[in-house]
Every structure is written in structure tokens, then in C-alpha cells.
């Protein structure tokens, strides 16, 4: 499955945030979307998953225009979104959170989903009866990703999964996402941790003030003087 964003413009109220953004994520590809605070990365993900209405431009899933579809309808079309701030159900157990991720699938796929998620994050299996609100930050992030994977998405949007995690845990989470991509899912990863993202990504975009200003392979971006100065502090 393939996600295309074409010339997308949107914002909040009268304040425009995105100014004609275009990007693409193909099957099995891990694509990093980098950019400073306030560049509009979260806004872009929100527009893709239908939480925010585009002012102009289009979001296409396998060529199908998603215009007018609710977030739930988009999720059912295999578009997953791990939102900023994780947005777990804190008073429910790990397993209940996961189960809600599969709420629209046939019940027999639930088991398959658990197996896949627990294989990817064995820690969640150990804590399946624990309340989500009492998990550590890293475990919460794993749960947020696992919950989205329960719906068997083919495109997965992930918003700053490494936020608040130790370098080692951040790496663990990003490597897990790499594995998800290897399984055929197109992953669009929003990250502030530029060095680490460029290590795992197949391609990357750099966004500044609501526009894509750079695009290319990780090698190319890590060599770019602007990236080195602004994001890698080299």
C-alpha cells in the first residue's frame, strides 16, 4: 500500500501551518519526517489521518482520495496512527488497550495480533494485566505502537516515539519500527532524534515552517551542510 500527500495546505482557525506539502510513503519503506519544533509535522499527520481538514491538496491511499472520510474510516482502510503523546487508555490494562486496537477486525485476527505485538515487544507480554497508566514511558510508547499494530495497518504514522526515552530505549523502539517496515508496512516516522532516525530510515524529508525543504536518502541528508548544522549539531 502506498500513501501520497499532494500539495497539502491546512492550519488551525485562520493560522495556516502547512503550505503545499507533498510526500510519499511506499510499501515496506521507513520514511523519516524531520524538522524543528513547530514545523508542522504533527499537523501533517493529523491531516493525513483525518483529524484535521485539509484546506487544499489531497491525501491518497493507493490512489484513493481520502477526502471526507472520518479518522475511523481511514483506520479501517489500514491507515494506522500512533499519535503525539501516546493517547493510551490509562485505566485499562495493556491487553485491553491492545484489544481496542483490533476492535474493527474479525475476532480471530485478535490472537494473531497479540502474537505479533508480543513478539515485537516481549515486555508488554510480561505486563499484560498491568494498567496502562502505570507503565514506564518506554513501555507506554511500545503499547501505543503495539495498539496501532493490532489493526494490521499497511501504512503507519508514528509521531515522536522517542520523546522522553533514554537513548537505549529510543533505539530499541526505532529498531522495532524498522522491523515493522521490513514486514511490508510503510512507516512515516516523525522524529526529533535526527541522528538515530537517519540510521534506520530508508528515506527522509526535512520540514521547515510548513514546507518540505529537503528530501533524499539518509546518506545524502547526513552529508548536507544545512542538516549537519541545524539538526546534527556538527
Amino acid at each position, binding site marked *: 500500500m502506498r500513501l501520497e500527500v499532494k500539495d497539502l495546505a491546512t492550519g488551525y482557525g485562520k493560522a495556516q501551518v502547512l503550505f503545499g506539502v507533498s510526500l510519499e510513503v511506499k510499501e515496506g519503506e521507513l520514511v523519516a519526517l524531520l524538522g524543528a519544533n513547530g514545523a508542522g509535522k504533527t499537523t501533517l499527520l493529523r491531516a493525513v489521518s483525518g483529524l484535521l481538514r485539509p484546506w487544499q491538496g489531497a491525501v491518497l491511499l493507493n490512489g484513493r482520495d481520502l477526502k471526507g472520510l472520518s479518522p*475511523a474510516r481511514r483506520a479501517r482502510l489500514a491507515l494506522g496512527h500512533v499519535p503525539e503523546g501516546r493517547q*493510551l*487508555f490509562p485505566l485499562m490494562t495493556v491487553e485491553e488497550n491492545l484489544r481496542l486496537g483490533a476492535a474493527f477486525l474479525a475476532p480471530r485476527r485478535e490472537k494473531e495480533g497479540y502474537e505479533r505485538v508480543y513478539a515485537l515487544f516481549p515486555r508488554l507480554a510480561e505486563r499484560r494485566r498491568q494498567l496502562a497508566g502505570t507503565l514506564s514511558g518506554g513501555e507506554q510508547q511500545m503499547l501505543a505502537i503495539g495498539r496501532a499494530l493490532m489493526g494490521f495497518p499497511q501504512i503507519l504514522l508514528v509521531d515522536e516515539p522517542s520523546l522522553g526515552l533514554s537513548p537505549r530505549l529510543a533505539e530499541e523502539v526505532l529498531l522495532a519500527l524498522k522491523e515493522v517496515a521490513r514486514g511490508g508496512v510503510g512507516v512515516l516516522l516523525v522524529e526529533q532524534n535526527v541522528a538515530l532516525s537517519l540510521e534506520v530510515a530508508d528515506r527522509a524529508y526535512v520540514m521547515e515552517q510548513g514546507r518540505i525543504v529537503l528530501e533524499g536518502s539518509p546518506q545524502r541528508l547526513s552529508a548536507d551542510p544545512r542538516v549537519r548544522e541545524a539538526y546534527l549539531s556538527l
Partner: protein
Amino acid sequence: MELFLQTLLNGLLMAGVYALVATGLALSLGVVGIVNFAHGEFLMLGAYLSYLLFALWGLDPLLSLGLAFAAAFAVGGLTYYGLIRPVLKAPELNQMLLTFGLSVILQNLALLLFGADTRVVAPPYQAATLTLGPFFLGAVPFGAFLLSAGLLLLLQAFFTRSRLGLAMRAVAQNRLAPGLLGIEAEGVYLLAFGLAAALAGAAGVMLSVMLYASPTVGFLFTLKSFAIVALAGLGNLKGVFPAALVLALAEALVSTYVPGGGGWVEAVFFLVLFLALVGRSRRAL
């Protein structure tokens, strides 16, 4: 001592029905996020339905129970769709004015249709009592308690085992995530509001036998339910039964031990509400 225990027993039996009504209120408050002052009017609807079916066709209230559940579910769903949904994003005060207005209209409608008299459903077993050692159990309060407890247990299973039940708890805990997981929150709200009304409707049938049907019987229970929900804590469904027990026991004790207690019983909810709110704001400091 016997009087004391008998009093506690009476309170306990009442707590089941209270918990049923208050669980409904807690659902509309916690899941849909609406302060529904018209919640008790779904109870009134169930009570009058039971009365009509009994008066017209002699239908046993036990049989009316399922009908009232379904009817109140439908009316609740329609109310959600027509009245609540349009104001979901409106300021809370506007929502409260709306549900308050609905409550007043429905009470007046009942007054027009049935008059101000209280109507009691009196099946043959209405006055039957069971004796348990030195204690008396009214067959009707005892039956109502068992039915309520059964319904509450079913509800508990629904909320922990079924996907729909999980989804209802989920939308109460996070408004953003369910949509991203393919769950249409709107549909969940509709069903939760219908279920809330249905619980009140079923309780109304029981109360038509235990108490009476009248235009204001629902509002009385709206107030009691607010006291129970305030005591249980917002969004805490498990706390509803213990809180209902506190209110019902307090009422029973007042009715037995306070001179002229009958008149004071209906004010106990206010004391409970007051203490719950004061306790809560103290803990928040």
C-alpha cells in the same frame, strides 16, 4: 438491635435499584460527557409504561421489564440523536440548560397525560413478605434487588469482556485515540446513551411496584443519582454500587431513627451530595 439490622436490610435492598439508575447517569456523564438532568425521566417513562401495561392488559411488571428496557433504549437513542448530539461541543452550561429543559417538558407532559396522582402497580405478590429469622423481607424489594444485582453483574461482564463495552470505557478515557483505532465515537456515544436510558427505564418498572409512578418520581431519582455519582467519583463505575449503598443506608437510618423521619428521607441525598463534594474539594487542595 433487631430494628437496627432490619433497617440496614431495608437499605441494602434499596441500594440495588439506586445503583442501577445511578450507573446510567454515570454512563451518560462519563462516556458521553453530558450532564443529563433528564435522566430520571427515562425512569418515569419505564414506570408509566409498566403502569399502562398493567392497567390495560394486566401485564406482569416482570414482563414489562424487558419492554421498558427496549423502549427506554430507543427513546434514549432518539434523544441523543436529536438533542444531545447537536450540543456535544457546546459549552457545558448550554448542555445543562437543554437537559434541564427536557426534564421539565417531560414532567409536564406526564402531568398532562396522567395527572398528578401517584400510580401504583399492584400485582398479586406486591404485599408478600418473606421471613428470615426475626427479619422481614418484602418480596418485591427483594426481587428488585436480585434483578438489579443481576443486571449490574451482566453490565460488569459487558464492560470487561465485550468489545463494545471496552469501547465505551475507552471513549470515556481518551477522546482522540478511539477514532484512530477505527472506532466511531459517535456510534459509541449513541449506544451508551441508549443503555443509560434503558437502565433507568428498567429501574422505573421496579419502582412502579415498590414505590409509584408519578410525574416527579424521575426527578427525585435524578437528584439521588447525582449524589451517588458525586460520592463514587466521576467515571468510576465500580464505585457506584458502594455509593448507592451509602445513600440507601443513610436514608433507611434516617427514616427509622429520626423523629418524623419520613419527611426527612428525601433530603438525605442533599447531605450526601454536599459531603461528597466538600470531601472531594478538600482532597483536591
